[in-house]
């Protein structure tokens, strides 16, 4: 009796420690990653001012003298991300509403598995398909000299963010208690009115989370954008011109830099910029979710 009790205590203690250690470990890893990023990234600013880095329009890292201005890359990322968001958010939310509120059960199951399959396609594969189909289509439809544009990237990334947005938004909609819908319908609301006035507002914090995760996926995406946005490091006049994004720059150039050179450090500094952008998006999402929950 006494023994089994202390044995249980020991077991509890070990399990508790293990969970504690894993929690601590994940925090330590994040800190180490950030420290590494910061150490390498900030080394750049010994030689180049932050101002020139963030607002410089020329990105010629291997010319002499080199230029490390990432404004065009920031603008490129912004174009692609905003474009993808504008495409993916309305369609994603509308699909989620259709799947959870309108579709008959059989169609719902088919669509849900379809979305999961979509989410599982590696981005290289999507990028390749995009290069073969989307890029020529954009070129011909809009009579451009090249189909490798910010617009193609936005379409592609919108498509890639869709599964994330749909599946999380759909979960949020499904979690809305059925009795709200019943109440609305019993008051003579149409199905559409009950969705618009009751179900969507009740699910809004989950939908915001879905949108933010979708945008997070878009900003972090590398392979597909590298393959279809044209990678021209200049500020575009409109969305139908080639752009180069922050992520594509890091991925494309990391292999050819000399360790410890300014070029090498500048790629880490781009990493810091990406980190800060993602952090801000998460912050906004958190804020939106918590304000709603109050």
């Amino acid at each position: 009796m006494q023994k089994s009790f202390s044995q249980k205590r020991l077991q509890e203690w070990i399990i508790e420690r293990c969970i504690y250690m894993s929690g601590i470990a994940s925090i330590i890893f994040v800190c180490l990653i950030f420290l590494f990023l910061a150490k390498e990234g900030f080394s750049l600013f010994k030689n180049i001012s932050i101002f020139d880095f963030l607002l410089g329009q020329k990105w010629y890292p291997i010319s002499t003298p080199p230029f490390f201005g990432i404004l065009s890359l920031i603008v490129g990322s912004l174009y692609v991300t905003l474009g993808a968001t504008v495409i993916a958010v309305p369609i994603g939310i509308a699909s989620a509403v259709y799947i959870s509120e309108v579709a008959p059960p059989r169609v719902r199951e088919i669509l849900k598995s379809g979305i999961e399959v979509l989410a599982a396609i590696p981005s290289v594969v999507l990028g390749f398909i995009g290069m073969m189909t989307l890029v020529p289509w954009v070129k011909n439809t809009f009579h451009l000299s090249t189909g490798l544009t910010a617009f193609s990237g936005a379409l592609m990334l919108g498509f890639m963010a869709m599964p994330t947005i749909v599946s999380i938004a759909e979960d949020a909609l499904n979690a809305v208690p059925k009795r709200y819908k019943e109440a609305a319908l019993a008051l003579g609301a149409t199905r559409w009115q009950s969705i618009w006035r009751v179900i969507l507002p009740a699910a809004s914090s989950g939908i915001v989370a879905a949108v933010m995760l979708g945008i997070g996926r878009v900003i972090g995406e590398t392979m597909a954008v590298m393959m279809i946005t044209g990678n021209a490091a200049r500020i575009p006049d409109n969305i139908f011109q080639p752009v180069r994004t922050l992520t594509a720059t890091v991925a494309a150039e990391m292999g050819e830099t000399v360790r410890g050179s300014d070029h090498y450090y500048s790629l880490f500094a781009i990493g810091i910029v990406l980190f800060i952008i993602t952090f801000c998006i998460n912050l906004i999402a958190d804020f939106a979710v918590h304000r709603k929950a109050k």
Partner: protein
Amino acid sequence: MSAIIQTRNFNLFYGTFHALKDVNIDIPKNMITSMIGPSGCGKSTLLRAYNRMNDLLEDVSVNGEVIVDGKNVNDPGMDLVELRKKVGMVFQRPNPFPLSVAENVLFSVKIHRSAAPKEYGDIIEKSLKAVDLWDGLKDKLNTSALNLSLEQQQRLCIARLLPVKPDILLMDEPCSALDPIATGHIEELMHHLKANYTIVIVTHNMQQAARVSDYTAYLYLGNLIEYDLTKKIFTVPKDRRTEDYLSGKFG
């Protein structure tokens, strides 16, 4: 008595399960009619047939007639929005929307565009006064309805129906989530509402049926066993099965 709801040889099936069997019952206008019977006997099903809430379920089929105010509600041409404006429903578990108190009351007004925004204040006041919530909530119109007590929530659910100007209020065990004191308050409220509304209440509580209703229907396994003045049902039931149920032999 003039019947506002007539139910004629009404049958309802959930898939192949025969949930209501040849039910015939006339609900009188401006009276309170209660439906009693053991759990699972079809009380809620019958109530939901009156505003066609069973439509939300898949695989429900009906035959026979339910006539509300002279119109067969199962007619293909029946306007469900009009039907549900005429026949309001209060649910077992209070289900205010996760919106403010004011927005709950105004919900129907906004979806049906039945009043101009400048009338909103009056509508809120009148509706909340009718359910005795005004004095308690007039300074809290913008708090979330989910912060109210269960009794207040149920009252709000009744108040929310009033701007639609329904003729009939269906109440499915409206007090089962409430304590006895709150139950007493809701019963009192029903007495007040009776002047203007026809009320049909489902309850598993026989004392409640005896206290509040003018007519009582006893259902058992999907059959309407007996339907009469509440006084008569509780004193001289005609059917053995009613008597057994009322005397507590089963249920």
